[in-house]
């Protein structure tokens, strides 16, 4: 082992300092919002709440969880994420499996058919008019069906399926298994990591998407939590933020009167983020692999 030079040592120290700063800057906004959401709103207004709650309270969350509109939006988000992810991954994986088979008639044409969509798209307005034209407007399915097949995910799935050892499938075929049986009984059980990764990406997309509901959905009871949160944050003044809350929560709030628009938005934001934070650590080791299959094996 060669001894590091003096300049190298300085470089390493600088790198550690920089990375610690980066970690802090990345983590701080999240932490600060969490702290404010657990701090009494009135106290937050006095300023200086940064790393630790000064006047710890659960009031903000109590009010947020009494807001029926918000709970409904949360439920819609959960439903959308579960159903959307399941259907999207299923249809995309089936397509990818079919396209990974050399004997598929029309394979080349189908691949080009899929890949072209990554370079050209009709754009926002024609898609919007199509969704309206086929009567999906203001329905739950408008948030699921238009983005059902994700071509990028299909390519990752396909690359993965192509790398699977052929022997198992061959022997299953000799035993009289059809393609569907092979897919569900042999291929899927072998594809755990890639399914986990792509399900995470798809689920994150569905959970985070606020834009499509904002143009497709007008019924209040179908709005997912991110879209609702966007409306809350968008109304800049405290009074209009309060008016986003429903009557029950308002009645409760007048009894407490210690919360503010800011503390409530922070609590709402945390509610909208927690599911992702909870799932993230479990899939982290997988998604690095997923990203690499997608980007390096083009």
């Amino acid at each position: 082992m060669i001894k590091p030079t003096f300049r190298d040592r300085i470089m390493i120290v600088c790198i550690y300092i920089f990375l610690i700063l980066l970690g802090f800057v990345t983590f701080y906004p999240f932490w600060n919002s969490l702290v404010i959401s657990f701090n009494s709103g009135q106290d937050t207004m006095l300023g200086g709440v940064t790393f630790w709650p000064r006047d710890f309270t659960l009031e903000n969350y109590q009010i947020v969880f009494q807001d029926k509109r918000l709970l409904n939006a949360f439920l819609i988000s959960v439903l959308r994420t579960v159903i959307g992810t399941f259907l999207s991954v299923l249809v995309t994986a089936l397509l990818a499996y079919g396209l990974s088979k050399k004997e598929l008639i029309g394979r080349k044409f189908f691949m080009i058919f899929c890949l072209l969509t990554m370079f050209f798209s009709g754009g926002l307005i024609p898609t919007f008019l199509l969704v309206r034209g086929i009567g999906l407007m203001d329905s739950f399915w408008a948030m699921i069906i238009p983005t059902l097949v994700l071509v990028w995910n299909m390519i990752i799935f396909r690359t993965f399926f192509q790398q699977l050892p052929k022997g198992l499938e061959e022997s299953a075929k000799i035993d009289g298994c059809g393609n569907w049986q092979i897919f569900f009984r042999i291929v899927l059980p072998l594809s755990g990591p890639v399914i986990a990764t792509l399900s995470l990406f798809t689920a994150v997309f569905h959970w985070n998407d606020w834009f499509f509901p904002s143009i497709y959905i007008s019924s209040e009871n179908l709005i997912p939590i991110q879209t609702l949160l966007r409306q809350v944050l968008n109304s800049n003044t405290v009074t209009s933020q309060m008016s986003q809350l429903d009557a029950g929560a308002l009645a409760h709030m007048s009894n407490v009167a210690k919360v503010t628009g800011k503390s409530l938005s922070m609590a709402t934001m945390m509610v909208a983020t927690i599911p992702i934070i909870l799932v993230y650590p479990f899939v982290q080791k997988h998604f690095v692999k997923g990203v690499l299959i997608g980007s390096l094996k083009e």
Partner: protein
Amino acid sequence: MGVKSEIITSDIKANKKKSFIKRYFGQFDLQMMVIPGLLFIFIFNYIPMYGVIMAFQDYDIFEGMMGSSWAGLEHFKMFFSDPRFLEIMRNTFVISGLKILICFPAPIMLALMLNEVKNMAFKRTVQTITYLPHFLSWVIVAGFTMSILSTDNGSLNIVLEKIGLIDGSISFLAIPEYFWTIIVSTNLWKSIGFASIVYIAAIAGVDQQLYEAAALDGASRFKQIFLITIPSIMPIIVIFFILEVGNLLNAGFEDLLILGDSAILRSVSDVIDTYVYRVGIGSGRYSYATAIGLFKALISVGLLTLANYIARRNGNSLW
């Protein structure tokens, strides 16, 4: 002889035709797997592509595309002579350019730095923390930004006041001069960690013997970064740079829509995509918005081709 061979070829043809149908139904279960996916792609990707035709029409929501009258290039001309045209193009190029200038090299530098860290626990912690923002929605990220920058005891104002740089709170998000800085920093914050994954993997794939040889020749770690690591991962950097340039007109959408959505900021926050959204969905001028979108798509394809041409001349091409 001629007749005979004709009979034979037609026989083969018939046989082939038969066997195509036979072959198709022979693998009908396999075809059934791809049909749903292809159908959805056809409906939600190809029908809208056909819908682009209405950029050349005066689209009438009651008549549909069949009944609408033709407008030729009228909508394109209208966009070019729109008083906001230059402003929107400037914003698109400036915001996108700043994002490339700062958000593109930053993950590479992060990956290079992480590679020098030998303490695995520390490395993993930094990675876990910096990957996280990628998974947060723009609504949440914008919420953080608003909270940190707010005049109502936002952390940045508190810090700046404490160290005496400013006297009173500054309403950062209401001042157009600050907007580009805010939007680029927020994007950097959200993307730096996750974008570094690819480069970290590329660096891990560099032949270790190169480093040993360089060390024997007396090159310091610092020098090795520039002489070995960066040249080794250059092909990947170039490929990602090409993709980035091809996306030059995608200056951002959700971030600008949420953070730049106020009348004061519109002169610096409106890019092609957000303009299409507000003109199209907001004001219902469908044909006009589609024309602007098509204009953008055409330039994008051109840019991608150009970037690839330049890259190919240097020996790294995408296709």
